[in-house]
């Protein structure tokens, strides 16, 4: 393991970009945001290239980097950053999501563009803090700091009646995260009692959690579990999600579905699994059932939605159910498959919302009630949407298929019933995604092309290149899975 402080660039550069965005003139703000985030993506990939492109798990482990800074010695909080084969994927996804989000619907640039860009980069910073930190207090700070830009984004650029949605979003997420904090402090207090050095580093908390009496372990587990279950979200804890997704501006929705939800996945893999293996094992059946129910329940609701954003919001829950099914297998292979599928979900859901934002720019209102026949008017846009939709229903040959297949393959021996239930969710997934695409793309063209005005152009230029590259990535990595699996 190499000690390097280049990791802290992953935190400081977004902050720098944030400050810089306040200086950059309004007119070039979008270009600046996209350029800076692309640059950051390149840097992130470079930084983690040793891990990402390693041929075996052992090589990847050699490239893992850890970096420590003293921060709050009184509560044992260190700024301990770690880039390894788990966090590397999430950090890269984070940078990628920023690129897509900044390139999405341009309307928001009319209102305080500087603030928006700055918030976006702050989000990048907060998420990277959470994804890189090995220290639970610092993780918590990163985890919570994500709220600030998110609430501002929904609050300032969101649509009408956003107040109560934002309130719910805040209430539920905060409830979860505060319980997590309580759990962290509980573990810390155990450390004090045991007389050891106080440290909130994951490595020093694992033995503490392992030594807890059963009831205490369960309580602490539920603190963590609830926080991440709300963040993902799993089904009984999802009720905040729909309204926020629908009312948020497109970039914020992209951020939420593509990467904020991954905070929950990441937390579950990185913290809950090593901290509470026994408790998780006790409840494994229940957890897998919850994940499977998430898949089916959200799929049914998506099928019912006539609002494309709501439909995609539910579909996001449904697909994350698969991811969690993989996590809850509590096996190395299951977790790997889950990370794999997470990457797929990030790309696909970001792309879906991105393309939806492009459709939104080009048509009046988004409603799935009547067929609109837009695919003849925008063949390139709808071809892209179709391919992404196929990836979303995990057609073989896409990244999502390989991920979903491996997740289900690994969950089958653990809980066959849950896997079967989740499998039916996949059929429903095809049903609602087809409905989504068909209602917008097919049928007789109902809108008058002249009415569309200046926006009636098909996807082109930078956006086309971005979408094309992402789709290529989804397909290529659907076959070249070794980059994720590393021969494990």
């Amino acid at each position: 393991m190499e000690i390097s402080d280049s990791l802290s660039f992953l935190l400081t550069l977004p902050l720098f970009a944030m400050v810089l965005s306040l200086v950059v003139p309004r007119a070039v703000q979008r270009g600046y945001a996209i350029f800076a985030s692309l640059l950051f993506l390149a840097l992130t990939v470079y930084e983690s290239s040793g891990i990402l492109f390693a041929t075996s798990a052992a090589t990847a482990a050699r490239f893992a980097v850890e970096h420590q800074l003293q921060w709050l010695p009184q509560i044992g909080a260190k700024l301990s950053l770690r880039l390894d084969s788990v966090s590397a994927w999430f950090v890269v996804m984070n940078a990628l999501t920023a690129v897509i989000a900044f390139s999405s619907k341009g309307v928001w640039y009319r209102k305080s563009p500087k603030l928006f860009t700055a918030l976006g980069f702050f989000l990048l910073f907060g998420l990277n803090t959470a994804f890189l930190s090995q220290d639970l207090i610092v993780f918590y700070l990163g985890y919570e700091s994500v709220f600030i830009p998110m609430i501002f984004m929904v609050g300032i650029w969101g649509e009408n009646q956003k107040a109560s949605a934002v309130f719910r979003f805040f209430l539920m997420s905060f409830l979860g995260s505060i319980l997590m904090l309580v759990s962290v402090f509980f573990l810390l207090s155990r450390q004090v009692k045991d007389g050891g050095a106080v440290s909130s580093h994951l490595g020093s908390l694992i033995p503490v959690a392992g030594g807890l009496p059963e009831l205490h372990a369960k309580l602490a587990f539920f603190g963590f579990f609830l926080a991440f279950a709300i963040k993902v979200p799993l089904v009984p804890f999802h009720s905040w999600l729909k309204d926020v997704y629908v009312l948020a501006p497109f970039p914020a929705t992209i951020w939420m579905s593509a990467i904020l939800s991954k905070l929950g996945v990441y937390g579950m893999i990185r913290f809950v699994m090593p901290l509470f293996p026994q408790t998780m094992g006790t409840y494994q059946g229940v957890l897998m059932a919850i994940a499977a129910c998430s898949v089916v329940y959200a799929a049914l609701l998506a099928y019912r939605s006539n609002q494309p954003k709501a439909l995609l919001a539910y579909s996001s829950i449904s697909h994350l159910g698969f991811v969690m099914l993989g996590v809850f297998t509590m096996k190395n292979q299951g977790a790997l498959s889950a990370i794999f599928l997470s990457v797929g979900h990030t790309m696909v859901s970001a792309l879906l919302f991105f393309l939806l934002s492009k459709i939104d720019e080009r048509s009046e209102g988004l409603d799935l009630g009547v067929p609109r026949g837009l695919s003849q008017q925008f063949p390139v846009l709808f071809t892209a949407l179709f391919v992404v939709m196929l990836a979303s229903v995990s057609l073989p040959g896409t990244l999502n298929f390989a991920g979903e297949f491996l997740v289900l393959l690994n969950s089958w021996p653990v809980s066959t019933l849950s896997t079967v239930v989740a499998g039916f969710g996949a059929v429903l997934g095809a049903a609602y995604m087809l409905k989504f695409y068909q209602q917008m793309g097919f049928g007789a063209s109902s809108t008058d092309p002249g009415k569309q005005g200046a926006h009636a152009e098909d996807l082109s230029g930078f956006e086309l290149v971005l979408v094309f590259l992402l789709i290529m990535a989804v397909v290529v990595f659907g076959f070249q899975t070794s980059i994720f699996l590393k021969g494990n």
Partner: protein
Amino acid sequence: MIITLLVFLPLLGFALNAFYHFNSAARKREPSVWVAGLIASSAMVAAFVCALIAWARLKGSAGVGPVLEESLFSWMNLGALHVEFGYRFDRLSAAFTLVITGVGALIHFYSIGYMENRGSARYFCYLNLFCFMMLNLVLGSSLPQVFLGWEGVGLASYLLIGFWSKEMANIAAAQKAFLMNRIGDLGLLFAMFIAFKFAGTLDLARLAGFEFRPDVATVFGLLIFLACTGKSAQIPLFTWLPDAMAGPTPVSALIHAATMVTSGIYLLARLNPVISQSTTVLLVISAVGAATALMAAITACFQSDIKKVLAYSTISQLGFMFAACGVGAAEAGVFHVVTHAFFKALLFLGAGSVIHALSGTQDVFKMGGLRKRLPFTFWTFTAGWAAILGLFPFSGFFSKDMILHEALVAAHGNPWVFGVLAFSALLTAFYMTRLYVLVFFGESRLSEEAGSHVHESPLVMILPLVILAVASLAGGWFGVPVHLETAHGEGASSVSPAVIMALSLLIAGVGAFLGYRKYSGTIQVEATKDPFRVDEFYGAVVGRGVKSLASFFGRYLEDGFFQKILQVSGAAVDLGGNLFKTVQTGSAQGYLLMMVLALLGLMFGLVFGVNGYGN
């Protein structure tokens, strides 16, 4: 690399046509059907040539069950799972590959004429994509790769059924096909999981040689069969196929008659050693196959749409093939797949030619007397008709006869299956003759408008018809040696093949005679009806069930229960807020006092050691 080349040639055609399509769209030009069609067709012809070369090599190589193997790269490696992406070419695959590329190439050519004014590069794109996926299905070396092809052909089928996407009815049909297939696909997916759990491999060759526990073999076999019922339109998942006729007719010929729908037979034949481990599975397969054959044949007698008749006929013929697999004579099923591919493609293309000539009319009661006006179509259609009836020496005679014989004498043969199949054969002869007579004989019942410009199809359409007619005539002879061989192998059986041959000829004759009697005189227009109403039943139970479950969840859980929880928690927060609001007097000194009290509490704890921190 011949196999890889053969598989990827259609993909190349797909890519070229996609480029052509978008390039023309960007320049606001209609792509030329001839350019697109020739790109696609030449890709298919090249693939056919490759397939012939590979077949020749296969014939040349020695040993029992010679195989050409090509491995491309490792697809998925995780834990004990190793999935190689590669192709495997053996006799079974060869039969399917030759049909796909051969019949496929003909249909591509035919499409150039058929889609002249309605097609685009997009159409040929989809067609090539289909062929690529289909080849992956039959040549893939592992189950996931078969699954790739399996879902891929479903996708291509979806795109082609809904090709005329302005009509939402077409889209609905396409969606139905996709979703029903997806339900079946779930069976294959689960079967893979079981195979991996118990056999530890997903490689087809190794899986075929694996001995499962009896109960596992049953479940595995049933799941595989579920997948097959979806793709091959058997009970209970057959209702999508008649609707799939919404697509262009060449598509119906290629996908919904010759190739895709037979992939179920391929899978059963491929996994025959595993399937045969469970008698339950075999019984289910033969029963479902026979029932489907009968049910579809009955339904076909009541259809008035020329394509729907052929669609039900396809379902019925697929039932024959499944029954063959079920009685343990998979090679008879595969043989019938090949002959059926020839004559059913021919029938569909002929029907397409008729529809093309009549500018879109599909109702057989609005046709009649076309024998003179469409001579090429008539004669080639006649060949197809004779073949499906099983008249000697047409190909259908050999394959159908083989199935009937096997149903009686094979290891799991069963007189019931034989009886049902024989009756279905009778009905087949009846409804095909009915169709044949209604379209080509008697008085013309054409509408004024359609009748005015009836024209024989162009050469590019006629030529494939002629080639297929020849194949329907001659195709059966390839299987004869196999036929006789098996017949002799079952030497212990009491029934001689000759008896069955005579019987099946008799059946065909009786059916044809009845059909001719009934429809040669004055015609009474019959309304289309579905005597079994399965489709409506599914709509009422499954479709509405899912919808009402969704709206139940939506109304009572999502908008009801969870909203209520949110409201309650919101109210609790409000309550708490109001509670604390009373303390928020706005008087700075009040706040200060609270600070002092809090500080007091802290100090108290510190000094008197609450919680053990004091010392």
